[in-house]
């Protein structure tokens, strides 16, 4: 009797365990789904995909998770070109988008939102051209809110606006914009802390979206841009605090990362050199800055005036001198960018024609060849 009770008890306990297990699995799947959706809202693709894929494996969330994945893949396949600097479409996701949306409908044939998403993806597949996704209104509103506080908003409100924007989308832009605003407001220590916070955020955002950059040089350029922005902002805040030695260290770091090709950084280095009474170095940085494109017109005007202040001579003489210097600097930069691979044989590369047939390169032999690799994006 005791055995029977034990046996029945075991069945009952097993049933409870199974039911509990199913509930736990459903709850975990539901959590993964919510997590995946939240990560995708922040545009953290890699983690979002992992969470959503996990949620597709449970029947209770399969339809919803597959739809979310299908929408994410649709964005990556057709709509992400230049949505963030350096991003390009990843056509490999196109087939996956349609497959995920079909899986969503297979899991729940009445799911109207997935049917609509599939219609859109199939329309993209058939279209000659698909426009990139437009800027998200909620992100634009949060950016605008931050900028509206720049001139005279309370510092606490600026910090809260940066925080709100950073939570909505995980790119580093609000930290760098916030740091610039705080410098302009004389809040140098807060600006330095905010710029420093932007660095791991920038690295993480690029890590999460690495394939969107298509080439390692492009993703590396983006890593460097985040780090150099932070270093330049920090250096400029330290300059404003008159801590010139520490400012030099950070501004030099930004110069290394940008290879001397960022207008604002060169202007800041010029200002630092002038403050340290090194007219020759100040001149070199101002000339560097002005020989680059970029930078707002008022700042370029300031750089020209600053250059004039460290270069004695009448206006006419100065202008002729400046034109000559700018042209010389541009030529030097061109020479420095050149990488010579003298004596390296041209590697063998299997090319195809535009429509996919093998490309015959025999006609190129014995000729001087200009070989240019390009992409339409």
């Amino acid at each position: 009797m005791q055995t029977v009770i034990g046996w029945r008890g075991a069945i009952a306990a097993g049933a409870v365990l199974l039911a509990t297990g199913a509930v736990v699995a459903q709850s975990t799947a539901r959590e993964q789904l919510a997590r995946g959706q939240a990560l995708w809202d922040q545009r953290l693709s890699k983690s979002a995909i992992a969470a959503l894929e996990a949620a597709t494996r449970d029947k209770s969330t399969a339809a919803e998770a597959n739809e979310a994945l299908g929408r994410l893949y649709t964005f990556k396949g057709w709509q992400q070109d230049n949505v963030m600097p350096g991003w390009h479409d990843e056509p490999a996701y196109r087939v996956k988008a349609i497959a995920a949306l079909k899986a969503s409908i297979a899991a729940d044939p009445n799911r109207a939102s997935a049917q609509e998403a599939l219609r859109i993806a199939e329309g993209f597949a058939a279209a000659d051209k698909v426009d990139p996704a437009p800027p998200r209104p909620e992100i634009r509103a949060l950016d605008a809110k931050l900028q509206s506080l720049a001139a005279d908003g309370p510092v606490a409100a600026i910090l809260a606006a940066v925080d709100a924007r950073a939570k909505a989308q995980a790119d580093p832009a609000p930290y760098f914009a916030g740091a610039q605003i705080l410098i302009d407001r004389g809040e140098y220590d807060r600006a330095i802390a905010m710029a420093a916070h932007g660095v791991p955020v920038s690295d993480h955002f690029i890590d999460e979206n690495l394939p969107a950059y298509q080439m390692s040089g492009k993703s590396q350029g983006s890593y460097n841009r985040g780090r150099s922005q932070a270093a330049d902002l920090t250096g400029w805040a330290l300059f404003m605090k008159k801590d010139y030695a520490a400012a030099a260290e950070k501004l030099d770091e930004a110069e290394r990362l940008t290879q001397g090709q960022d207008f604002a950084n060169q202007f800041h280095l010029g200002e630092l050199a002038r403050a340290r009474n090194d007219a020759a170095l100040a001149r070199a940085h101002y000339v560097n800055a002005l020989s680059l494109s970029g930078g707002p017109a008022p700042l370029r005007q300031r750089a020209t005036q600053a250059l004039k202040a460290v270069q004695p001579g009448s206006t006419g003489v100065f202008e002729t001198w400046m034109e000559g210097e700018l042209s010389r600097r541009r030529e030097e930069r061109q020479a420095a960018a050149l990488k010579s691979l003298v004596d390296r044989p041209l590697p063998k590369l299997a090319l195809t024609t535009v429509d996919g047939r093998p490309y015959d390169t025999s006609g190129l032999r014995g000729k001087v060849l200009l070989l240019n690799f390009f992409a339409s994006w």
Partner: protein
Amino acid sequence: MAFLLVSIDEDDKRLQRYLNEMKFPFPVARVKAETAEQVMGFDNIPATFYVDRGDIVRYYVNGSEPHGDSPTRVSWFVDQLKGPAGARR
């Protein structure tokens, strides 16, 4: 002297649209980005290789040249290779 443009585009329609728009007067071939990156050793585009008559790469420019006087520069490279320095070795 020969010119060859090589696209690393994955998207057929987009490439065709671009070619229709640009009307390049040179032949265009294609290669996978990953293959090009590995074999040619560049990590950014555009990437331009100037090759002499003996199939030796003599100059290489990686990335765009935002401040460059491109036509003059390209002519300079080509002139170097068309002269005695670019002869088959």
